[in-house]
């Protein structure tokens, strides 16, 4: 077996989801090679990938066509490299989920999406029905194409490896699409999917200003990332990339504090693997209390400022 991992990176920094994907790839069967595709800044990410423990080789495809991570351009690059590999793995991030199925179809492979466990060389576990069931599936395809849920695998050590970096190239610009821009949410806070602590707010926060006023001081105090329920995002309190849930981000921090979140199935699917869950909600019957380690039935507008001052 040999596996190719698609690195996710941003401005030359490797995304931690890549490290979990390396761990999954090693479980599928090594040696593990990492493909870093991007523009001018890709070489910095390649150097970082070369230091990751367990990585034997880094392939660096540096071309303006790969700068925006357009699936139309990156998928043919990956497919072209797959002669040399038995498995292709990408993090189940929005980038990985966009590119991997395009690769799979080019290779005539049925992808295994969002795996949470490796049970055998071709056998995997994955959540279905918004995490309400876990399926164990076995692939019969000659090659494997897999996306990996980052919170389900330990991260490979970022230091300790000494992989070689080799140049790789593909067909370049497919001429189908153009990257126009990214309206990035600027934040000094830790990134949601890798944060140790998350403070999350729901619809009960009333509006954008109140959300900020109640949630931010607590998050500041804890050095936490800020998340939100789908209801809070739909209501426009916070941007879309704050959403925690089956169709938003899947998180598993050490501490998750859910404030004014009722706990819809699709939200629980995104956070129930957190180590400690705290829920503050004035409705004692809210489903969030069924998964919370510590629940406080209280008006959040009293309880959260008090909690912030006492921590």
């Amino acid at each position, binding site marked *: 077996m040999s596996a190719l991992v698609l690195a996710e990176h941003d401005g030359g920094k490797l995304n931690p989801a890549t490290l979990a994907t390396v761990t999954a790839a090693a479980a599928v069967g090594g040696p593990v090679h990492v493909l870093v595709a991007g523009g001018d800044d890709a070489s910095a990410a390649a150097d970082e990938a070369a230091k990751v423990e367990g990585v034997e080789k880094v392939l660096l495809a540096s071309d303006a066509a790969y700068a*925006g991570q*357009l*699936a*139309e351009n990156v998928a043919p690059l990956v497919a072209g490299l797959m002669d040399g590999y038995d498995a292709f793995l990408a993090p189940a991030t*929005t*980038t990985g989920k*966009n*590119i991997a*199925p395009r690769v*799979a*179809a080019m290779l005539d*492979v*049925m*992808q*295994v*999406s969002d795996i949470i466990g490796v049970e055998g060389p071709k056998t995997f576990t994955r*959540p*279905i*029905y*918004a995490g*309400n*069931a*876990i*399926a*164990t*599936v*076995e*692939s*019969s395809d000659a090659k494997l194409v897999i996306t990996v849920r980052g919170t389900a695998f330990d991260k490979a050590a970022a230091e300790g490896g000494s992989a070689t970096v080799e140049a790789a190239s593909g067909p370049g610009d497919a*001429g*189908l*699409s*153009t990257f*126009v*821009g*990214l*309206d*990035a*949410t600027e934040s000094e806070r830790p990134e949601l*999917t890798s944060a140790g602590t998350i403070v999350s707010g729901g619809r009960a926060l009333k509006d954008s200003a109140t959300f900020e006023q109640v949630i931010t001081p607590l998050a500041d105090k804890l050095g936490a990332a800020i998340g939100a329920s789908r209801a809070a995002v739909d209501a426009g309190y916070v941007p*879309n*990339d704050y959403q925690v849930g089956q*169709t938003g*981000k899947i998180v598993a921090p050490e501490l998750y504090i859910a404030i004014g979140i009722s706990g819809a*199935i699709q939200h629980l699917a995104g956070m*129930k693997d957190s*180590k*400690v869950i*705290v829920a503050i909600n004035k409705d*004692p019957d809210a489903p969030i*209390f069924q998964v*919370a380690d*510590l*629940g*406080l039935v*209280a008006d959040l507008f009293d309880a959260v400022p*008090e*909690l912030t001052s*006492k*921590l």
Partner: protein
Amino acid sequence: MKILVPVKRVIDYNLKPRIKSDGSGVDLANIKMSMNPFDEIAVEEAIRLAEAGKAEEVVVVSIGPAKAQETLRTGMAMGADRAILVETDDEVEPLAVAKILKAVVEEENPGMVIMGKQAIDDDSNQTGQMLAALLGWAQGTFASKVELDSDAVTVTREVDGGLETVKLGLPAIVTTDLRLNEPRFAKLPNIMKAKKKLLDTKSPADYGVDTAPRLKTLKVTEPPVREAGEIVPDVDTLVAKLKVMGAV
């Protein structure tokens, strides 16, 4: 332009699935089924483009059992013009669905395919991307805004870092995210009218597609249950317990 909208019949999103006691799958007998919510958003978007004069015809297509006719009728009651059912009782995986859709596209020649980003049953999130690959088309996945011009479509995508914008040459595939629009409810007169709209029935064999599964489901189990903890009386107790747990 013609817009093709693939739709899937799935368990109603309000229902919690029951796992069969033999672990062979999810029990769907006598369960309320509905159109996959992301596909409803896709139908809505296509109809809005038609209403804005940017598309002439909206065709809904479903691959599934005879009962998927109901799902197609729902799409037509919302405003789609006609429907195609590719009838099969087998479970068809995303790759085979994409192959069937490719054949439908080659017959229908739409300028755009709009479809849900994932189905809420298998949560694969693959079919749109696969169809784009098989057709050699551009793909705008996880769309929260779609602006269609005569020769290109600009798609705003919900990505992990915020909102990304891409410009796609036509024809193209768009897959929908939650915030693209709020689908309308079909009104009774439109439900009646939809019964008279054209619904063609085909089979996967008509398109020469082998739907044999590549993935074998060995078992389906309940997720590990997280036990409810305790309700604390006040903030002081909460802080004290968090400290004991080492969480703060």
